[in-house]
Structure formats: C-alpha cells, structure tokens
C-alpha cells in the first residue's frame, strides 16, 4: 500500500515490479454515483501517459479513466465489467480497472502520495 500513488484525475496506481495496477479513487466513485457500466482497454494496447484508457458510466455521467503512466496493457478486471457495482463498493480495493507494464517508471515521480492526494481533495471541497 505504501507504493500507491494518485493523479489529479482521481486515478490510483500501485506498482509491483514492472507492472502497475490502476483504478479510480473512492472520491471519484462517490462523485459518479451508482456505476452502471465499465469499458476496459484490450490487453496489448499501448498507452501514453494521460491517454483515455477506460470508460466508467453512472446513470447520469460518463467519464474517461486516464492512465497515469505510459505502457502496455497486460490485463483488465473482468469482475467490474460483469458487476459494475463493485466499483462503488471497493474502488480502491478489488475494483481495479487494468494493469500496465510500465514504459517509464520515472513517470511515477509526478504523482501524489496519499497525504498529498488527501490535501488535494480538501482544495476541491
């Protein structure tokens, strides 16, 4: 958990070796409301940092999920496609979106840690 980083677009990433797991934050799921649909990138797709990689839809909103790092998609979380409610229930737990093989681990340096992200959220209130 110590390695978890956050973006201003409310994505989180946790890195294990060369692979990062990416999801949306609990704050983001709260803003969206009941999630009804998730679309994930195909494994093998090459992403550049900031690309719209996935789509998450609630009843009233549709939002892109941007990748906080560049790299190749290695997996998507089928469980949240089958049951989008999981995104609301465990956004920062089991409801991860996709995994990326990092092209440049140096990009992580530009992201926030938990404390910085919490402080960032306070500025939005």
């Amino acid at each position, binding site marked *: 958990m110590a390695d978890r980083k956050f973006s201003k677009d409310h994505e989180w990433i946790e890195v294990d070796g060369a692979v990062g797991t990416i999801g949306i934050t609990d704050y983001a799921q709260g803003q969206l409301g009941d999630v009804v*649909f998730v*679309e994930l990138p195909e494994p093998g797709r090459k992403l550049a940092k900031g690309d719209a990689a996935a789509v998450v839809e609630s*009843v*009233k*909103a*549709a939002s892109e999920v941007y990748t906080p790092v560049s790299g190749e998609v290695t997996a998507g979380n089928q469980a949240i496609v089958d049951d989008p409610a999981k995104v609301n229930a465990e956004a920062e737990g089991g409801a991860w979106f996709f995994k990326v093989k990092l092209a440049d681990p140096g990009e992580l340096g530009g992201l926030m840690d938990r404390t910085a992200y919490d402080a960032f959220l306070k500025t939005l209130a």
Partner: protein
Amino acid sequence: MRYMPHTEADRRAMLQAIGVPSVDSLFRDVPEAARLKGPVDLPPHQGELEVERAIAAMAARNLGTASAPSFLGAGAYRHHVPAAVDHLIQRGEFLTSYTPYQPEVSQGTLQYLFEFQTQVALLTGMEVANASMYDGASAASEAVVMATRVTKRDRAVLSGNLHPHYREVVATNAGLLGIALDAAPPCPDGAEDLARRIDDKTACVVVQNPGFFGQIRDFTKLAEACRARGALLIVAVTEVVSLGALKPPGEMGADIVVAEGQSLGNPLGFGGPYVGLFATREKFLRQMPGRLCGQTVDADGQRGFVLTLSTREQHIRREKATSNICTNSGLCALAFTIHLTLLGEAGFRRLAALNHARAAQLAERLEKTRGVEVVGDGFFNEFAVRLEGRKAVDVVEQLAGKRILAGVPVARLYPDRPELADLLLVAATELTTDRDIDALATALEGAR
C-alpha cells in the same frame, strides 16, 4: 388573440410586480439597433375560419392519392389506417406531452415505447431495438456510423438496390466523418455481387430488402461473407409491411436492421414526418444511437419504465456522443405501435398477404399489357416495369393529366442515368382495387 390568456389588466399587474413600466423595457438587453419598433411585414392575426380557408385552398390545388388511382411507392406507401389510430394519437396526454425524462409522470409514453421496441425487434428478427429515429434514411446513415464505431473501420459498401435517398443521406454523413463509400451501381434485375467488394477495411455492407426496384433476396450468404471478414451486414427495409410475409433480416444474419415505419399508422403526408426503426444485436447495445426505454421497478417495487443508457447521448457525452440526434419520432412511433397492436399477428400477416396478392394481380395484368414489360420476378408489393420506347417521366405526367398517379419514374431519382429512363416503379397495397389496376393498364397502353 385566442391563444393568449392575458388581459391588459393582467399585464399591468404583472409589470407592477416586476417593477418595470412596459413589456418593451424587459427587452433592454437587446441592442437598440436590433429592436423592431413594430410588427414585421407579414399579415396580421386571423381567426380559425380565415386560416382554414387559406390552407384548404392550398390543399385543393393538389391531387391527393385518395382521390385517384395511385401506384406510388419507392419508400413511401399508402395504406389504410384504422380510425382508432388517429383518434388515440390525438389524445392530449400523448400529443402534448414532452420527452419522458420524468418517468413518474410519463409511464404512458414509456410503456408504449417499450412495447414499440419489442414489436420492432420481433418484426425484424433482432434482439433489441431503439425508440425510433427520424426516418428510414437517417436510421440507415446512423447504422453506418455505428458500424464504423463497432468495427473501428472506415469503409462502407452500399448496394445498388438501396433507395437513392438513403444512399445520399448515408453519403452526406459519411463525407463529414471521413467514411469511404463503395456504392454499387443501380441494378434493376437485382443481381449484384457485393461479397467481392468486402475487404479487411470494410465496416459494413448496406443492402435493402425488398430492393429499391422491388426485388427480394436472401442475404444469408452475404451475411456469412461479411462475418468472415469482420464486417457488419446492415439491412434496410423501406416497406415494413413486407416483414409480415418475408423471412426477416435477423434470420438472414443481419447485424443491424433499419426500416421506414411510415406504412403502419402514418399518412403519406408528402414525405414526413415518418418514423425510422433501428434494431440490432444485444452485444452492440451500447454502441446503438437513439433513445432507449428500459424496464425497472419503482420505490414500491412495482414494474415501471425509464429512459435508460442515456450516457450515450449528447447532453452527457457532448462531443463524444454516439450521435447528435436528440429526438425520436415519438408520435409517429405511437401511431405505428397502435396500428400494429390493432392488427396483431393475424391481421399483420393478412395485411402483408393482401398487399402481395394485389401486387401479383397488378403484375399479371401488366404482363398482358402492350408496351409494358415487368422486370424480374420475386417481389413483395412493388416492382419495376419497362415502358418500351418511352420515358417513364413523360408517361407519368400524361397519366397525371388523366388523374392517374401511375407510379414513380426511376428517372425522378436517377435523372443522370439514361439506361433507367424507361423504368417505372409501381406499387399496390390493400387499397388498390381492380378498377385502379384496370385504369392503369388501359392508360399505359395508350400513353406515348
């Protein structure tokens, strides 16, 4: 003015409550130079009787299809509409309601849309349908755009038997979006090899059944060819009554079916408003354009209906929407669904059989008519005839002079193709009588 309730006393009281001296002063944000000081140069208000007289005079200058033997088709068909249809759609609760965004006060509209979607899915042999589009042509165009989204490819093959207006509307949108079109030439005899036009960049093939020239075909093999190359098959139907007699496109393997629904419940009305039908497979649901009504439950657990999956629409996705369309064709869809409910399975199938039988009788008679050749075999309620040595446009004009609406000259839609100049499309429906057929055959024999 009969439509405005305020008296002068009301207006004065309201202006006082607002705290301004006049209605004009409420327009103070309009630049002075653009404020009109008085009415524009148009006639003043009129009562019902004057307006009715003026518009009835315009109507009287037309020859309506109800007043003459008519064989016009080519994408718009005159059918008998049961009296109950027009009565019901004029109920104010249907006529004067808005799009059902507030489901608690719109269950009437929502339930008929749900029933409509089911009827369309059943007729086309598809899994799901939307709540309707502007018309058949715009539905076809949206289908092509959807196919490019689904396949992530940017080429579309158009059959030469697709209605020319549909081809033009598809071309308009394709031009905007950079979709390349491969449009086969018109082929009145129905034989064209579209499969050889499919390649790895083809998003879809668009065909029509019955074709523009009336011929009917089985597209099962074409559907297989599409699937083999990862392209979608789009089948357009311009005469929806045909689905009561013919193998539905869904059974042929179509991926998207679009249709013009005017034939059920809606008058010819000089071309609009009509109602576009749009059906597809469940797996393409979220790529589908247009409004969708879905079933759910209310706070008391009772079944109810809502507009759903609206995140595909422009008021949420804005520039990323699946389409810029934000209306369906509600009232025309209502007329369609009521007519089809009244018909039911037995009535709809009989209506289709009657249409086909009338057209077959017409063909039999025209086959025996001098100077007239029926083109091809295998049709539903419309087919092409060749008027030997004559231009169909001229013949139709001559017959109009005798108060016979003889059909649609193909040259009206393809004026730049001299090889089609002698072709006339003729349609028969349940409204066609023996006398009508006799009048047409006799007049065609004598026409130059």
